C-alpha cells in the first residue's frame, strides 16, 4: 500500500491560528512536522552561506527545506544521474518542498503563455509546460510540490491578467494531477494546488470552486505578490480581505501554504488567519542586507530610545560594542561573537559576516516559529501577536 503524505489538524475553526501536523513522508515515515511550519530557504541546493555542517550547528532538529526552480532548473540534467535532487545536493536527510518561483528574488513578469509559463534562471529564460515541469518533478522527487501555475499577479494586476492566470493555472493543474496520479515515483508525494486570483475576491472564489474537488494535500495561496524583498513591505491591511475571503472558502483539513518574505508582523497575522506553512526567505534577505534580527530580544537600555527590529552591523556605533547581537539568543553567533566583530567583518567585506548573520537569523526565525506554536497551544497567541505588532509598528514610525 502506498503511504501518502498527510496533514492533520484538530482545529475546526476556518480562519484562525491553528496547530497541525505533517506526517507520513514516504522517505521518512517516522517524521512529524508541526505547523505553523517554517521551511528553510535554500538556493542552488544549499542554505545560503551555510555548509551542511554549519547548518547542523544552527539546529539539530529535523528541518523541512524549500527549494525553488529558478536556482535549480539548470541542475536537472545532472540530477538525472542521481536518485533525486536531495541526493544530488547531498541533503538526503531533509524533506523538501518545491516551489515554482524563488521567494527571495523578484519574479520577472510576463512571457506567460497559454500552455506554458516562464521562469528566469541566472542564464536566462526557461519555458515550462505542464509536461516538462512534471519531468523535472519526477527527476527531483520533492516530498511536496505545487502544481504548475501562473502566479504572475499582484495588487496592480488587471482583471484580464487575473482571469488568464486562473484559466492557465487550471489547465496546468489538470495535466500535473494526471501525471502525478499515474507516476509511481511521485504519486505518494504531496501535491498542492495554487489558488490564484490576485486581489479579486470573485476570481479567488472561482479558482477555489474548481480546486475543491481535486485530491490535493493542500493549497498554496499564490498570486499576491511577485516575490523578492518588496514582500517585506506588505502590511496585513493590504491583504486581509483577500486572505480571509480565500481561507473562509477552503476546507479546514487541507494544508495552507504562503511563500514569500513576509515581515514578522504580517506573518503573525497570516498565522492568525489560518496559514500553516511559510519559508525563511525573510531571514535570508535580512542577512543579505547585513542586518541581524532582534525583534524578540529584550532590548538593552542603550536601545530604549529606539527599539530596534533589526540591527545593522555596519553602523559605527557597533565598532566597539562587545556585546552579542542578542543576549538571550542561544545561537552560535550570539554565544561566541560580538557586534564589534561583526562590524569589523562587515567593513572588511568578509564572507564570515554572512555566515554568522545567517546562523543567527535562521536560528532566530526558527525560534520565532517555536514561540508561535507554543503560544497557539497555550492560548496566548493573540497577546504574542500584539507584542510583535507593537515592536514592528514602532519601527514603522521611526
Amino acid at each position, binding site marked *: 500500500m502506498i503511504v501518502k503524505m498527510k496533514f492533520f489538524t484538530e482545529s475546526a475553526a476556518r480562519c484562525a491560528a491553528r496547530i497541525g501536523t505533517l506526517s507520513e513522508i514516504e522517505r521518512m515515515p517516522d517524521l512529524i512536522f508541526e505547523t505553523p511550519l517554517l521551511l528553510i530557504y535554500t538556493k542552488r541546493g*544549499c*542554505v545560503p*552561506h551555510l555548509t551542511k555542517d*554549519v547548518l547542523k550547528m544552527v539546529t539539530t532538529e529535523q528541518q523541512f527545506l524549500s527549494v525553488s526552480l529558478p536556482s535549480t532548473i539548470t541542475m536537472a540534467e545532472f540530477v538525472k544521474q542521481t536518485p533525486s535532487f536531495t541526493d544530488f545536493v*547531498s541533503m538526503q536527510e531533509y524533506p523538501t518542498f518545491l516551489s515554482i518561483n524563488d521567494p527571495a528574488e523578484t519574479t520577472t513578469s510576463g512571457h506567460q503563455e497559454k500552455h506554458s509559463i516562464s521562469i528566469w534562471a541566472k542564464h536566462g529564460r526557461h519555458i515550462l509546460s505542464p509536461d516538462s515541469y512534471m519531468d523535472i518533478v519526477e527527476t527531483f522527487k520533492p516530498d511536496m510540490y505545487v502544481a504548475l501555475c501562473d502566479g504572475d499577479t499582484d495588487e496592480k494586476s488587471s482583471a484580464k491578467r487575473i482571469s488568464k492566470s486562473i484559466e492557465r493555472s487550471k489547465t496546468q493543474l489538470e495535466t500535473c494531477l494526471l501525471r502525478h496520479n499515474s507516476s509511481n515515483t511521485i504519486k505518494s508525494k504531496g501535491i498542492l494546488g495554487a489558488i490564484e486570483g490576485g486581489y479579486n475576491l470573485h476570481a479567488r472564489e472561482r479558482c477555489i470552486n474548481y480546486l475543491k474537488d481535486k485530491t490535493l494535500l493542500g493549497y498554496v495561496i499564490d498570486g499576491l505578490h511577485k516575490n523578492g524583498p518588496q514582500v517585506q513591505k506588505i502590511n496585513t491591511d493590504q491583504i486581509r480581505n483577500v486572505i480571509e475571503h480565500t481561507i473562509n472558502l477552503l476546507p479546514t483539513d487541507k494544508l495552507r501554504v504562503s511563500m514569500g518574505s513576509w515581515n514578522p508582523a504580517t506573518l503573525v497575522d497570516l498565522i492568525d488567519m489560518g496559514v500553516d506553512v511559510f519559508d525563511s526567505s525573510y531571514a535570508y534577505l535580512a542577512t543579505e542586507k547585513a542586518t541581524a534580527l532582534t525583534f524578540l530580544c529584550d532590548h538593552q537600555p542603550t536601545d530604549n530610545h529606539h527599539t530596534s527590529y533589526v540591527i545593522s552591523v555596519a553602523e559605527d556605533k557597533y*565598532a*566597539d560594542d562587545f556585546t552579542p547581537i542578542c543576549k538571550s539568543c542561544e545561537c552560535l553567533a550570539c554565544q561566541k561573537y560580538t557586534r*564589534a566583530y561583526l562590524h569589523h567583518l562587515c567593513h572588511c567585506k*568578509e564572507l*564570515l559576516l554572512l555566515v554568522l548573520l545567517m546562523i543567527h537569523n535562521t536560528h532566530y526565525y526558527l525560534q520565532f516559529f517555536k514561540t508561535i506554536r507554543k503560544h497557539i497551544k497555550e492560548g496566548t497567541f493573540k497577546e504574542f501577536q500584539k507584542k510583535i505588532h507593537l515592536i514592528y509598528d514602532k519601527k514603522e514610525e521611526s
Partner: protein
Amino acid sequence: MYLHSAYGLWNFMCFGLKYDKLCDKYPDYEKNNIQMSEKRPALIFKVITECQTTKARVGKMTVPHHTVDTPVFMPVGTKGTLKGILPEQLKQLNCQIILGNTYHLGTKPGIDILQKAGGLHKFMNWDRALLTDSGGFQMVSLLKFAEINEQGVKFISPYDDSECMLTPEYSIKIQNTIGADIIMQLDDVIKTTTTGTRVEEAMHRTTRWLDRCLSTHQKPNEQSIFPIMQGGLNAELRSESGLQLTQRKVNGYAIGGLSGGESKDDFWKMVNVSTNILPKDKPRYLMGVGFAVDLIVCSALGVDMFDCVFPTRTARFGCALVLTGQLNLKQGQYGNDTAPIDEFCNCSTCKTYSRAYLHQIVTMETVGCHLLSVHNIAFQMRLMQNIRESIKKGEFPQFVQQFMLKVYPTKEYPSWIVDALQAVNIYLA
C-alpha cells in the same frame, strides 16, 4: 649517510663559529641569556623525533594558547577571519595555529578596538595559537610609495595621503596589542631576486631592527619575537644573517626573503643553507611556502613551520587541491562527475559532496567557496600529519619517495626536487 655526517660536521663547526663571534661582539650575551631564561618562556620547543636520514624532525611547540605539532602548515586569516570558515570548523580540521596580518589588522579594526577587545584571540573567538607578521611585507607589496630608511618603512597612507612611518617599535606595539603567541620582527623587505649591495644592507638593517624590536617588546613572557633571516639568494650573506640572528635571545627563527619569484634551484639551496645555520633546538619558520611538494622538500630540509594564502585563495577561484595539483571545478567535465574531490580524503566536503554538485555552486554560492576551503585546509593538514607520522615511524624517506612517485608517475622529477632531496640523502630513482 656520507652526506648526512658531513652535514653534522658543518653544523658543529658553524655552532663553534657562531658562539665565538657572538661572545666577541656582544660581551653581555651570556649574562643576558641567563637573565632572560629565568622567566617562564613564551615558547617551548621539543624535538620528539629526528629523521635518521634527512634533516626533518617532529616537534612539539608549546605557546601560551596551544601546543602545536610540527612540521605545521598555518592557514592565513588575514583580517581576523579565515575566508568564511568558522574557528569551530578550523578546530574540527585539526588546525592548531593560524596567521593574522598586522598591516591589515592595524588598519581595520585598528589597535584601539583590538585593545578594547582584549586581543585578537578574543575578538575573533580563536583560542588556539596565533602568529602575526610584522606588516612590513604588505607595506612594500601593497603600497605604491613605500620607501625604506634606517628609521623604518615610510609610506603614503592610502586613506588620506598623509605620510606614515612603520618602525620596528610601532610594528611590535601593534603586535603586542594583537597578542599573537608568535610575532615577527619588522624586516627590511627587498625583492627576492635583488642582487648587489642592497641585499647586504637589508640583511644588516634587519639585524639592527631586530634589536630595536626586542628592546621595545612589552610581553616577552607571552609572545615570542621571531627574527627573520635575510641575505637574498647569496649563501654567504644568508649565513652571516643567520650568525647575527642566532646571537640574539629568541625562541625561534623565520627564513625570509624566499618564495618571491626566485628559481626553485636557488630556493631549496637557500633553505638548506638557512636550516644548516639555525640551531636545532628552535623552531624554523619558512615564510610564504605552501605547495605540497615544497612542504615535503622543505620539511626534509629541516623546516618546522609554513604559511601560505594559496589553499584558501585557490578555493575562491573554484579550485580544489589534490595530490597531482588542483581541480578547477568550474570546468564542464565535472558536471557529471559523481565522485568526491578525493575519495581518500576524509574532510566533510569529500564525505558529503560530489564534484558534480560542487561544479554547480563554485563561484556562484559562498557555500561553494567554503566547501573548497574546508577541503583545501584539510588537504594541507593531512599532508603535514602524514609527514609527521612517517618521521615518527622512521619511514620518512620512503614516504617522500612514494609521494613524489604519485605526483610524478612517469618519474620525470624536476631536477630541483632530485637535487634538494639528494642533499638530505633521499634518492629518487
